């Protein structure tokens, strides 16, 4: 079978999440992926912990920075530990992940938005008593 033919076959195949292809006789490349993931995740964690207590930056920017660092670290975990890639064999995994992320975002923003609105429009107890008289 020619190489190009094999390539075209490959694009139809799927990869299982968390399953990195490597040569079973030389798994060094697979270790490297986990090592890189560990290094990046450690770095991001240390920065997160450092920045949460620092007075070096403008206070209100800290939560934003923490959220960005957390999302970056989740990305590191997905790529290097769960082995979710952008390759053609990973389309189904990424589509499922995208749908999951959509639901998570709807749930989080929707709940916070609705509850903040309710809080804002809620009468205080005193007003409620007043109304009942």
């Amino acid at each position, binding site marked *: 079978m020619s190489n190009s033919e094999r390539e075209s076959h490959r694009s139809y195949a799927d990869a299982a999440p*968390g399953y990195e292809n490597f040569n079973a006789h030389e798994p060094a490349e697979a270790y490297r*992926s986990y090592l890189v993931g560990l290094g990046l995740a450690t770095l991001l964690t240390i920065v997160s*912990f450092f920045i949460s*207590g620092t007075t070096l930056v403008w206070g209100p920017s800290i939560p934003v920075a923490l959220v960005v660092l957390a999302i970056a670290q989740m990305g590191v975990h997905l790529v290097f530990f769960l082995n979710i890639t952008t390759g053609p064999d990973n389309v189904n*995994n990424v589509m499922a992940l995208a749908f999951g992320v959509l639901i998570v975002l709807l749930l989080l923003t929707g709940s916070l938005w609705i509850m903040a609105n309710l809080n804002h429009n809620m009468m205080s107890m005193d007003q409620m008593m007043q109304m009942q008289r």
Partner: protein
Amino acid sequence: MSAFEAAAGYDRESLDRQPTAERAGGELMSKRIIVGYGFWIFLLSDIIMFSAFFATYAVLVGATADGPSGRELFDLRNVGIETAFLLLSSFTCGLASIGARTHRGSWFYGAMSATGILGAAFLYIEVHEFAGMVARGAGPTRSAFLSAFFTLVGCHGLHVTAGILWLLTMMAQVFAKGYRPDILRRVLCFGLFWHTLDIIWVAIFTMVYLMGVGQ
């Protein structure tokens, strides 16, 4: 690569990369992909369940009922140690999955034991923290904030507990049944589960602890 192997459409180095149709035993390979994908969808649904707990926590974080807030309760040094343990266990779990696939018993059992011990150490610190909070009157019944806190972090702790039980089961099954394809599929799913727990912990230490202390 021998001429025969080339004619058959595979070589040893890319054996794992070949699509199902091209290799002998393709049945097993496609089953691994289906099992992995199905478990991936379960994990995403688990993450959605956690996001509901996160939303609850975010809504109730200010509802302390004049009780203690996160700033007074949380000890970031403990959380840092917990984070280090869980991150390292995620790494050793990856090593264990390589050990299982290369059929290297010492790698597999060693890395799985390290994963289990790190997970147990994480749980010990968490239970210790919970017990300390309950002892000083900041149990889950104290305020809506604390109810949400114990639900969210406790649910993650329960997942870690279940993960450790699963880990021990996998070690016993590999010991008793060897590196059979069906056992390897279970090891794959266990690895996915354990890595996902670490992803959820990233959200917890950021949103609950770091933001809770910093607010």
